[in-house]
Protein backbone atom coordinates (compact mmCIF):
# COMPACT_ATOMS: atom_id res chain seq x y z
CA UNK A 1 0.00 0.00 0.00
CA UNK A 2 1.38 3.35 -0.91
CA UNK A 3 0.42 6.59 0.63
CA UNK A 4 0.65 10.00 -0.93
CA UNK A 5 1.71 13.18 0.71
CA UNK A 6 -1.84 14.48 1.11
CA UNK A 7 -3.08 11.37 2.89
CA UNK A 8 -0.04 11.29 5.17
CA UNK A 9 -0.65 14.90 6.27
CA UNK A 10 -4.33 14.11 6.91
CA UNK A 11 -3.51 11.16 9.16
CA UNK A 12 -0.79 13.09 10.98
CA UNK A 13 -3.14 16.02 11.57
CA UNK A 14 -5.98 13.88 12.87
CA UNK A 15 -3.75 11.92 15.23
CA UNK A 16 -2.26 15.14 16.63
CA UNK A 17 -5.72 16.55 17.34
CA UNK A 18 -6.81 13.30 18.96
CA UNK A 19 -3.63 13.12 21.02
CA UNK A 20 -3.90 16.66 22.39
CA UNK A 21 -7.63 16.23 22.98
CA UNK A 22 -7.04 13.02 24.86
CA UNK A 23 -4.46 14.58 27.17
CA UNK A 24 -6.72 17.54 27.93
CA UNK A 25 -9.72 15.30 28.61
CA UNK A 26 -7.57 13.13 30.88
CA UNK A 27 -6.35 16.14 32.85
CA UNK A 28 -9.94 17.34 33.23
CA UNK A 29 -11.05 14.01 34.65
CA UNK A 30 -8.22 14.02 37.18
CA UNK A 31 -9.12 17.46 38.49
CA UNK A 32 -12.74 16.53 39.07
CA UNK A 33 -11.73 14.00 41.69
CA UNK A 34 -11.57 16.62 44.46
CA UNK A 35 -14.29 18.84 43.07
CA UNK A 36 -16.43 18.56 46.18
CA UNK A 37 -13.79 19.71 48.65
CA UNK A 38 -12.58 23.24 49.30
CA UNK A 39 -10.38 25.20 51.67
CA UNK A 40 -10.77 28.20 53.93
CA UNK A 41 -9.08 30.14 56.72
CA UNK A 42 -9.98 29.67 60.31
CA UNK A 43 -12.62 32.25 61.20
CA UNK A 44 -10.52 33.50 64.14
CA UNK A 45 -7.28 33.77 62.13
CA UNK A 46 -5.52 37.13 62.35
CA UNK A 47 -5.61 38.81 58.96
CA UNK A 48 -3.95 42.01 57.88
CA UNK A 49 -2.45 43.81 54.91
CA UNK A 50 0.99 44.59 56.24
CA UNK A 51 2.01 43.03 59.51
CA UNK A 52 4.63 44.90 61.49
CA UNK A 53 6.42 44.83 64.83
CA UNK A 54 7.32 47.89 66.87
CA UNK A 55 10.15 47.37 69.33
CA UNK A 56 10.00 49.54 72.43
CA UNK A 57 13.65 49.82 73.34
CA UNK A 58 12.93 51.40 76.71
CA UNK A 59 11.47 48.07 77.79
CA UNK A 60 13.93 45.83 75.98
CA UNK A 61 17.52 46.84 76.36
CA UNK A 62 19.34 44.20 78.31
CA UNK A 63 20.75 41.16 76.62
CA UNK A 64 19.16 38.71 79.02
CA UNK A 65 15.56 39.74 78.30
CA UNK A 66 16.13 39.58 74.55
CA UNK A 67 17.78 36.20 74.91
CA UNK A 68 14.75 34.97 76.82
CA UNK A 69 12.46 36.09 73.99
CA UNK A 70 14.75 34.49 71.40
CA UNK A 71 14.69 31.31 73.43
CA UNK A 72 10.88 31.26 73.37
CA UNK A 73 10.90 31.76 69.59
CA UNK A 74 13.51 29.10 68.98
CA UNK A 75 11.76 26.59 71.20
CA UNK A 76 8.49 27.16 69.39
CA UNK A 77 10.06 26.63 65.97
CA UNK A 78 12.58 23.89 66.80
CA UNK A 79 15.56 26.11 65.97
CA UNK A 80 18.71 24.25 66.98
CA UNK A 81 21.27 25.83 69.28
CA UNK A 82 24.73 25.86 67.71
CA UNK A 83 27.73 27.31 69.52
CA UNK A 84 29.98 27.55 66.46
CA UNK A 85 29.34 31.11 65.22
CA UNK A 86 29.67 30.36 61.49
CA UNK A 87 26.94 27.73 61.61
CA UNK A 88 24.55 29.28 64.10
CA UNK A 89 20.87 29.60 63.26
CA UNK A 90 18.89 32.52 64.59
CA UNK A 91 15.43 33.83 63.99
CA UNK A 92 15.64 36.53 66.66
CA UNK A 93 18.78 37.62 68.44
CA UNK A 94 20.29 40.45 70.54
CA UNK A 95 22.80 42.86 69.03
CA UNK A 96 24.54 45.98 70.37
CA UNK A 97 22.81 49.23 69.40
CA UNK A 98 25.90 50.59 67.66
CA UNK A 99 26.13 47.43 65.52
CA UNK A 100 22.44 47.28 64.73
CA UNK A 101 22.35 50.94 63.66
CA UNK A 102 25.85 51.72 62.36
CA UNK A 103 24.55 54.67 60.34
CA UNK A 104 23.33 56.38 63.52
CA UNK A 105 26.93 57.07 64.43
CA UNK A 106 27.06 59.82 66.93
CA UNK A 107 30.27 60.66 68.70
CA UNK A 108 28.47 61.65 71.87
CA UNK A 109 25.68 59.09 71.85
CA UNK A 110 24.56 58.44 75.40
CA UNK A 111 26.63 55.59 76.80
CA UNK A 112 23.48 53.93 78.01
CA UNK A 113 22.06 53.69 74.50
CA UNK A 114 25.37 52.98 72.84
CA UNK A 115 25.96 49.83 74.84
CA UNK A 116 22.37 48.70 75.15
CA UNK A 117 21.13 45.72 73.17
CA UNK A 118 18.35 45.63 70.60
CA UNK A 119 16.42 42.59 69.37
CA UNK A 120 16.93 41.90 65.68
CA UNK A 121 14.80 39.72 63.41
CA UNK A 122 13.64 39.51 59.82
CA UNK A 123 12.26 42.93 58.89
CA UNK A 124 9.53 41.54 56.62
CA UNK A 125 10.36 44.29 54.15
CA UNK A 126 7.72 45.77 51.91
CA UNK A 127 10.28 45.59 49.11
CA UNK A 128 12.24 42.46 50.03
CA UNK A 129 15.51 41.95 48.14
CA UNK A 130 15.63 38.28 49.18
CA UNK A 131 12.40 37.59 47.30
CA UNK A 132 13.72 39.22 44.14
CA UNK A 133 16.78 36.99 43.99
CA UNK A 134 15.19 33.65 44.93
CA UNK A 135 15.33 31.47 41.81
CA UNK A 136 12.61 29.04 42.95
CA UNK A 137 10.20 31.42 44.72
CA UNK A 138 10.90 29.48 47.89
CA UNK A 139 10.88 32.82 49.65
CA UNK A 140 7.97 35.02 48.73
CA UNK A 141 5.81 37.81 50.02
CA UNK A 142 2.35 36.91 51.26
CA UNK A 143 -0.65 39.17 50.82
CA UNK A 144 -0.48 40.08 54.52
CA UNK A 145 3.10 41.36 54.23
CA UNK A 146 4.90 38.36 55.71
CA UNK A 147 8.07 37.41 53.85
CA UNK A 148 7.61 33.66 53.96
CA UNK A 149 9.85 30.67 53.45
CA UNK A 150 8.56 27.57 51.69
CA UNK A 151 11.07 25.00 52.90
CA UNK A 152 9.76 22.47 50.38
CA UNK A 153 11.10 24.59 47.55
CA UNK A 154 14.38 25.91 48.94
CA UNK A 155 17.37 24.54 47.04
CA UNK A 156 19.94 26.09 49.37
CA UNK A 157 21.57 28.42 46.84
CA UNK A 158 21.91 31.14 49.52
CA UNK A 159 21.27 34.03 47.10
CA UNK A 160 18.78 35.36 49.65
CA UNK A 161 21.42 35.38 52.37
CA UNK A 162 23.65 37.48 50.15
CA UNK A 163 20.75 39.77 49.27
CA UNK A 164 19.43 40.37 52.79
CA UNK A 165 21.06 43.52 54.18
CA UNK A 166 20.07 42.61 57.74
CA UNK A 167 21.72 39.20 58.10
CA UNK A 168 18.35 37.77 59.06
CA UNK A 169 18.82 34.46 57.28
CA UNK A 170 20.65 31.37 58.43
CA UNK A 171 21.79 28.32 56.51
CA UNK A 172 21.53 24.76 57.78
CA UNK A 173 25.06 23.48 57.37
CA UNK A 174 24.18 20.40 59.39
CA UNK A 175 21.11 18.24 59.71
CA UNK A 176 19.23 20.01 62.53
CA UNK A 177 17.65 16.69 63.48
CA UNK A 178 20.99 15.34 64.62
CA UNK A 179 21.86 18.46 66.63
CA UNK A 180 20.92 18.62 70.30
CA UNK A 181 18.88 15.40 70.31
CA UNK A 182 18.24 15.76 74.02
CA UNK A 183 16.20 18.92 73.56
CA UNK A 184 12.49 18.18 73.47
CA UNK A 185 11.07 19.19 70.07
CA UNK A 186 7.80 21.02 69.58
CA UNK A 187 5.74 18.27 67.93
CA UNK A 188 3.36 20.79 66.37
CA UNK A 189 6.01 22.40 64.15
CA UNK A 190 8.37 20.79 61.63
CA UNK A 191 12.15 20.93 61.67
CA UNK A 192 14.26 21.80 58.65
CA UNK A 193 16.61 19.65 56.63
CA UNK A 194 20.28 20.10 55.88
CA UNK A 195 20.89 22.58 53.05
CA UNK A 196 17.97 24.97 53.38
CA UNK A 197 17.87 28.60 54.47
CA UNK A 198 15.59 29.60 57.31
CA UNK A 199 14.50 32.76 59.09
CA UNK A 200 11.70 34.32 61.11
CA UNK A 201 8.30 33.71 59.50
CA UNK A 202 6.46 36.07 61.85
CA UNK A 203 4.74 33.01 63.33
CA UNK A 204 2.42 32.52 60.36
CA UNK A 205 1.22 29.29 61.99
CA UNK A 206 0.20 31.14 65.16
CA UNK A 207 -1.50 33.94 63.21
CA UNK A 208 -3.51 31.31 61.33
CA UNK A 209 -4.76 30.06 64.70
CA UNK A 210 -5.60 33.54 65.96
CA UNK A 211 -2.55 33.97 68.19
CA UNK A 212 0.04 36.75 68.16
CA UNK A 213 3.69 35.86 67.43
CA UNK A 214 5.57 33.99 70.15
CA UNK A 215 8.14 36.77 70.67
CA UNK A 216 5.39 39.37 71.16
CA UNK A 217 3.70 37.16 73.74
CA UNK A 218 6.97 36.59 75.61
CA UNK A 219 8.03 40.27 75.59
CA UNK A 220 5.38 41.63 78.00
CA UNK A 221 4.72 44.72 75.89
CA UNK A 222 8.28 45.27 74.71
CA UNK A 223 7.24 44.22 71.22
CA UNK A 224 4.02 45.48 69.70
CA UNK A 225 2.44 43.59 66.82
CA UNK A 226 -0.14 44.97 64.40
CA UNK A 227 -1.20 45.94 60.91
CA UNK A 228 0.47 49.05 59.45
CA UNK A 229 -2.30 49.28 56.87
CA UNK A 230 -4.96 49.76 59.54
CA UNK A 231 -4.90 53.39 60.83
CA UNK A 232 -6.56 52.33 64.10
CA UNK A 233 -4.10 49.56 64.93
CA UNK A 234 -1.89 49.77 68.00
CA UNK A 235 1.31 49.89 65.96
CA UNK A 236 0.08 52.94 64.05
CA UNK A 237 -0.90 54.71 67.30
CA UNK A 238 2.49 53.99 68.85
CA UNK A 239 4.29 55.19 65.72
CA UNK A 240 2.28 58.39 65.70
CA UNK A 241 3.19 59.16 69.29
CA UNK A 242 6.90 58.30 69.16
CA UNK A 243 9.89 59.01 67.02
CA UNK A 244 10.91 55.73 65.44
CA UNK A 245 13.90 54.42 63.52
CA UNK A 246 14.30 51.47 61.19
CA UNK A 247 17.37 49.54 60.13
CA UNK A 248 18.98 50.79 56.90
CA UNK A 249 15.87 52.49 55.45
CA UNK A 250 18.13 54.24 52.93
CA UNK A 251 18.36 50.96 50.98
CA UNK A 252 14.71 51.25 49.99
CA UNK A 253 13.68 47.88 51.38
CA UNK A 254 10.93 49.48 53.50
CA UNK A 255 11.40 47.33 56.60
CA UNK A 256 8.34 46.61 58.74
CA UNK A 257 10.17 46.41 62.06
CA UNK A 258 10.28 49.78 63.83
CA UNK A 259 12.35 50.74 66.87
CA UNK A 260 11.26 53.44 69.31
CA UNK A 261 13.67 54.72 71.91
CA UNK A 262 11.18 55.41 74.66
Amino acid at each position, binding site marked *: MSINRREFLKIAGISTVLGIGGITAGAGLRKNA*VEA*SSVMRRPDALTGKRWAIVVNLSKLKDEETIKRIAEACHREHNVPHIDYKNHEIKWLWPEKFEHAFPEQEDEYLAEEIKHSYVPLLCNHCDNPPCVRVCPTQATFKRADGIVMM*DMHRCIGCRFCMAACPYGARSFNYKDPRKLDPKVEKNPE*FPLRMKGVVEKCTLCYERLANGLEPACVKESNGGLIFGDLDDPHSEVRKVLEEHYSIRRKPELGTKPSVYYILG
Partner: protein
Amino acid sequence: MYDGWKIIIGIIIFLGLIAFPFYYDMGKATVTPDPKIDTPEIMKLPESERKCIEPKDYMKREHMQMLDDWRDWVVRDGSTIFIASDGKQYTMSLQNTCMKCHSNKKEFCDECHNYTAVSPYCWDCHIEPKESES
Protein backbone atom coordinates in the same frame (compact mmCIF):
# COMPACT_ATOMS: atom_id res chain seq x y z
CA MET B 1 27.85 -18.82 10.31
CA TYR B 2 31.41 -17.79 11.21
CA ASP B 3 32.35 -18.32 14.87
CA GLY B 4 28.84 -19.57 15.55
CA TRP B 5 29.70 -21.07 18.93
CA LYS B 6 31.12 -17.76 20.14
CA ILE B 7 27.91 -16.00 19.22
CA ILE B 8 25.74 -18.66 20.84
CA ILE B 9 27.77 -18.58 24.08
CA GLY B 10 27.55 -14.79 24.02
CA ILE B 11 23.78 -14.94 23.61
CA ILE B 12 23.45 -17.43 26.47
CA ILE B 13 25.53 -15.24 28.80
CA PHE B 14 23.53 -12.20 27.76
CA LEU B 15 20.19 -13.91 28.42
CA GLY B 16 21.49 -15.20 31.74
CA LEU B 17 22.41 -11.70 32.87
CA ILE B 18 19.19 -10.16 31.62
CA ALA B 19 17.08 -12.79 33.36
CA PHE B 20 19.08 -12.61 36.60
CA PRO B 21 16.54 -10.50 38.54
CA PHE B 22 13.77 -12.93 37.63
CA TYR B 23 15.41 -16.16 38.71
CA TYR B 24 17.01 -14.47 41.71
CA ASP B 25 13.55 -13.68 43.05
CA MET B 26 12.00 -16.96 41.92
CA GLY B 27 10.34 -18.98 44.62
CA LYS B 28 10.57 -16.15 47.15
CA ALA B 29 7.18 -15.28 48.52
CA THR B 30 6.28 -11.65 47.93
CA VAL B 31 4.73 -10.01 50.93
CA THR B 32 1.82 -7.85 49.89
CA PRO B 33 1.87 -4.61 51.81
CA ASP B 34 -0.79 -4.42 54.46
CA PRO B 35 -0.90 -0.96 56.04
CA LYS B 36 -2.36 -1.14 59.53
CA ILE B 37 -5.12 1.24 60.51
CA ASP B 38 -5.78 -0.14 63.97
CA THR B 39 -3.91 2.47 66.02
CA PRO B 40 -5.20 3.16 69.55
CA GLU B 41 -6.32 6.61 68.38
CA ILE B 42 -8.49 5.18 65.62
CA MET B 43 -9.85 2.35 67.78
CA LYS B 44 -10.97 4.92 70.34
CA LEU B 45 -13.36 6.49 67.82
CA PRO B 46 -16.89 5.15 67.61
CA GLU B 47 -17.43 2.70 64.78
CA SER B 48 -19.38 5.17 62.63
CA GLU B 49 -16.61 7.79 62.70
CA ARG B 50 -13.81 5.40 61.92
CA LYS B 51 -13.06 6.70 58.45
CA CYS B 52 -10.49 8.92 56.80
CA ILE B 53 -11.24 12.44 55.63
CA GLU B 54 -12.08 11.19 52.14
CA PRO B 55 -13.09 7.69 50.95
CA LYS B 56 -10.43 5.04 51.49
CA ASP B 57 -10.11 4.30 47.81
CA TYR B 58 -9.51 7.93 46.97
CA MET B 59 -6.96 8.32 49.79
CA LYS B 60 -5.05 5.27 48.59
CA ARG B 61 -4.81 6.63 45.09
CA GLU B 62 -4.50 10.37 45.64
CA HIS B 63 -3.00 11.00 49.09
CA MET B 64 0.25 12.23 47.60
CA GLN B 65 -1.56 14.76 45.42
CA MET B 66 -3.66 15.84 48.37
CA LEU B 67 -0.62 16.38 50.60
CA ASP B 68 0.99 18.38 47.83
CA ASP B 69 -2.11 20.56 47.53
CA TRP B 70 -2.29 20.96 51.29
CA ARG B 71 1.25 22.23 51.61
CA ASP B 72 0.68 24.86 48.94
CA TRP B 73 -2.60 25.97 50.47
CA VAL B 74 -1.14 26.23 53.96
CA VAL B 75 2.35 27.56 53.27
CA ARG B 76 1.68 29.74 50.26
CA ASP B 77 -1.98 30.77 50.55
CA GLY B 78 -2.38 30.76 54.32
CA SER B 79 -5.59 28.70 54.36
CA THR B 80 -5.55 26.08 57.07
CA ILE B 81 -8.99 24.45 56.99
CA PHE B 82 -9.86 21.71 54.52
CA ILE B 83 -13.54 21.10 53.87
CA ALA B 84 -13.88 17.48 52.79
CA SER B 85 -16.44 16.31 50.25
CA ASP B 86 -18.80 15.31 53.07
CA GLY B 87 -18.66 18.85 54.51
CA LYS B 88 -16.52 18.08 57.55
CA GLN B 89 -13.68 20.47 58.38
CA TYR B 90 -10.12 19.46 59.09
CA THR B 91 -6.92 21.38 59.83
CA MET B 92 -4.52 20.80 56.97
CA SER B 93 -1.43 19.44 58.67
CA LEU B 94 0.54 16.27 58.16
CA GLN B 95 1.99 16.33 61.66
CA ASN B 96 -1.07 17.53 63.53
CA THR B 97 -3.94 15.95 61.60
CA CYS B 98 -2.90 12.88 59.59
CA MET B 99 -0.43 11.50 62.08
CA LYS B 100 -2.68 12.13 65.08
CA CYS B 101 -4.84 9.20 63.94
CA HIS B 102 -2.25 7.32 61.90
CA SER B 103 0.28 7.30 64.70
CA ASN B 104 1.98 4.21 63.27
CA LYS B 105 4.29 5.57 60.59
CA LYS B 106 6.22 2.32 60.26
CA GLU B 107 3.19 0.13 59.71
CA PHE B 108 1.15 2.71 57.83
CA CYS B 109 3.40 4.86 55.63
CA ASP B 110 6.54 2.77 55.33
CA GLU B 111 4.64 -0.45 54.62
CA CYS B 112 3.64 0.54 51.07
CA HIS B 113 6.43 3.02 50.43
CA ASN B 114 9.06 0.35 51.01
CA TYR B 115 7.15 -2.15 48.86
CA THR B 116 6.98 0.27 45.93
CA ALA B 117 10.49 1.58 46.63
CA VAL B 118 9.50 5.21 46.94
CA SER B 119 11.13 7.38 49.56
CA PRO B 120 9.18 10.59 50.07
CA TYR B 121 11.19 13.18 51.98
CA CYS B 122 8.38 14.19 54.37
CA TRP B 123 10.29 13.03 57.44
CA ASP B 124 13.47 14.92 56.66
CA CYS B 125 11.74 17.85 58.33
CA HIS B 126 8.37 16.79 59.72
CA ILE B 127 8.42 15.07 63.09
CA GLU B 128 6.96 11.59 63.05
CA PRO B 129 4.85 10.46 65.99
CA LYS B 130 6.66 8.62 68.75
CA GLU B 131 6.20 4.89 68.31
CA SER B 132 6.74 2.21 70.84
CA GLU B 133 9.31 -0.25 69.57
CA SER B 134 7.52 -3.54 69.13
